[in-house]
């Protein structure tokens, strides 16, 4: 098992990220955070029925997106992946369409709970709410890529809780046997809803489970987007070289209750939450970029106000759209005559 150290204190521009990319990583983390906060407010106001957040996971998720070929690599997300969706390329409007469940929502046209993203252009595969069922899908997408010779990888995202499920074991093992170009990306926030890690598993690092499948396991600081991007980039290179899957574990913390329906005061000490929030990866990354001279006060303010406007617009836009048509209810149970499929229609 490899442990990738945090690079947070390096004070020169990392050679592998140009300033524009660094700013873009920051912008997407912040956009995600802003959307996240707004969605939470909308749910508290009763304007959204249910939301689930990625607050605290932004560095890991956006960082991972920047280690991939966005739009070419296959993404199998889970419900905690708002920041990933934004990191890959989904827009504020698209996110808010999911939150409001309105006509035109590209993820599901309002059929799924919010934050269950899907997008054909970004090769983001629709996920269910069932934990870990996406892991074998990523293996299958990678099998397909391998068979057709397309130089892309598939990535499955899941929590440390999900690593205890049968589908993790079976999916990772299958991919390992066939040396498939896939990355298993675990976001370890120490809890499955209220169940703390010590009641989920005996081990410290989910990454150490890689050895059970004969694949590398990598621990990375999930508060450091660049470390995460690098770990993903390396895993991607390994996968494309035919060396098979990598299990990456990003250590993160969930800032919010599990969802708008949860109350984490029942099971998490406030000091623990506050300590994690004090290490918030977004201001930390901002400070880092400032120290590097990649971002200054005015650029930072510009980004913030641009994002504020973007999110305002997205809320207004989404809320202006109609609810899905009643008649739409029975569409797409099966293929419609003459419909063009994305899957199966190469």
């Amino acid at each position, binding site marked *: 098992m490899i442990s990738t150290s945090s690079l947070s204190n390096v004070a020169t521009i990392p050679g592998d990220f140009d300033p524009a990319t660094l700013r873009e990583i920051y912008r997407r983390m912040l956009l995600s955070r802003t959307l996240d906060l707004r969605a939470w407010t909308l749910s508290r106001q009763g304007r959204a029925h249910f939301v689930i957040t990625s607050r605290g996971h932004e560095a890991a998720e956006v960082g991972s997106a920047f280690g991939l070929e966005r739009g070419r690599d296959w993404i199998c997300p889970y419900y905690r992946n708002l920041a990933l969706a934004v990191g890959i390329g989904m827009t504020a409007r698209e996110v808010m369409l999911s939150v409001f469940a309105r006509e035109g929502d590209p993820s599901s046209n309002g059929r799924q709970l919010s934050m269950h993203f899907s997008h054909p252009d970004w090769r983001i595969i629709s996920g269910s709410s069932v934990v870990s069922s996406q892991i074998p899908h990523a293996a299958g997408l990678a099998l397909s890529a391998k068979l057709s010779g397309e130089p892309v990888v598939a990535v499955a995202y899941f929590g440390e809780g999900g690593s205890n499920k049968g589908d993790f074991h079976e999916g990772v093992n299958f991919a390992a046997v066939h040396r498939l170009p896939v990355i298993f990306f675990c976001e370890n926030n120490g809890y499955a809803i209220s169940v703390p890690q010590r009641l989920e*598993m005996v081990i410290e690092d989910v990454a150490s489970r890689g050895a059970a499948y004969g694949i590398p396991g990598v621990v990375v600081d999930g508060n450091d987007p660049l470390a995460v991007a690098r770990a993903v980039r390396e895993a991607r290179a390994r996968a494309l070289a035919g060396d098979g899957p990598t299990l990456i574990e990003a250590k993160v913390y969930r800032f919010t209750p599990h969802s708008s329906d949860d109350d984490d005061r029942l099971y998490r000490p406030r000091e623990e939450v506050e300590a994690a929030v004090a290490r918030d990866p977004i201001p930390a990354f901002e400070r880092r970029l400032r120290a590097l001279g990649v971002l200054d006060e005015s650029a930072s303010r510009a980004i913030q106000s641009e994002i504020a406007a973007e999110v305002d617009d997205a809320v207004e836009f989404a809320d202006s759209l109609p609810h899905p048509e009643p008649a739409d209810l029975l569409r797409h149970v099966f293929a419609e005559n003459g419909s063009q499929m994305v899957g199966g229609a190469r």
Partner: protein
Amino acid sequence: MTVKNVLQAIREALDEELASDERVIVLGQDVGRRGGVFRTTEGLIDRYGPSRIIDAPLSESAIVGVAIGASLAGHRPIAEIQFADFIWPAMDQIVSEAARMRYRSHGTWSCPLVIRTPYGAGIHGGLYHSQSIEATFAHVPGLKVVAPATPADAKGLLKAAIRDPDPVLFLEHKRTYRLIKDEVPDEDYTLPLGKAAIVRPGRHLSIITYGMMLHESLKAAEAAAVDGIEAEVIDLRTLSPLDKTAILDSVRRTHKAIVVHEDSLTGGLGGEIAAIIASEAFDALDGPVVRVAAPDSPATPFNSTQEELYLPNAAKIEKAIRELAAY
């Protein structure tokens, strides 16, 4: 008698059985400190400790499989599946193992356990927090399936299920949890599994239903009664084994039947009930056996428009009552 909601009734049943029988244990995700995502196990960990109220890893198959093992050695596990939609990973343990243990060992081993799970739609749960799963499990010999609709039934049936010598899938309609309030006896009581109840007597037709649809059916029956159509409403309460006697007796009196469920139509439990009527009460029938159910799409969408459209409700049932009465 005290007025309680379904949630409270269930929590009390758990509490009382844990208190009176030390073989009873609870395991599932978030059943400890969190008290369950719907709070049905609230406070239990304080009273019975983490060795009897066990927070499980995210492993439905192990939750049921471990419960099976513990039941084999004499414990009385109550396994919780957080949402019925997430029961499928445990399908094999339920169908191949719990339900067949007694049969395959010719009575040597058995699995006295309960699997509790919230099911059903109507709380904006979207495709994966809304499913009805009863038809699948009512087709599994060796497994009992219970689905109460009221607080008093929930308590009496859950206590009976915990004491039952066989595995019981206990389905709690999540919309009833807080919505349905009624009197619950204060003393220790159980209600027999396998017995339906006539909740509203009537002479023109029989409505056979369960769970949340009991309440919608009762509303519909009241609405139709305004015009003198008296529908009898039967709450099945136990879905497997079915109370055939209650179903057939009623239809033999009313000569017409409507089966109502929230689950999708094709292959739903309504088919079985209609078939029983069509084969065993055919001579008594004065009209087609009607089914009111959700359409054949995969659970209810998240958005409100379509959730309403998807779900059967009092209006749809009333329409069916009026049409059948006029047949």
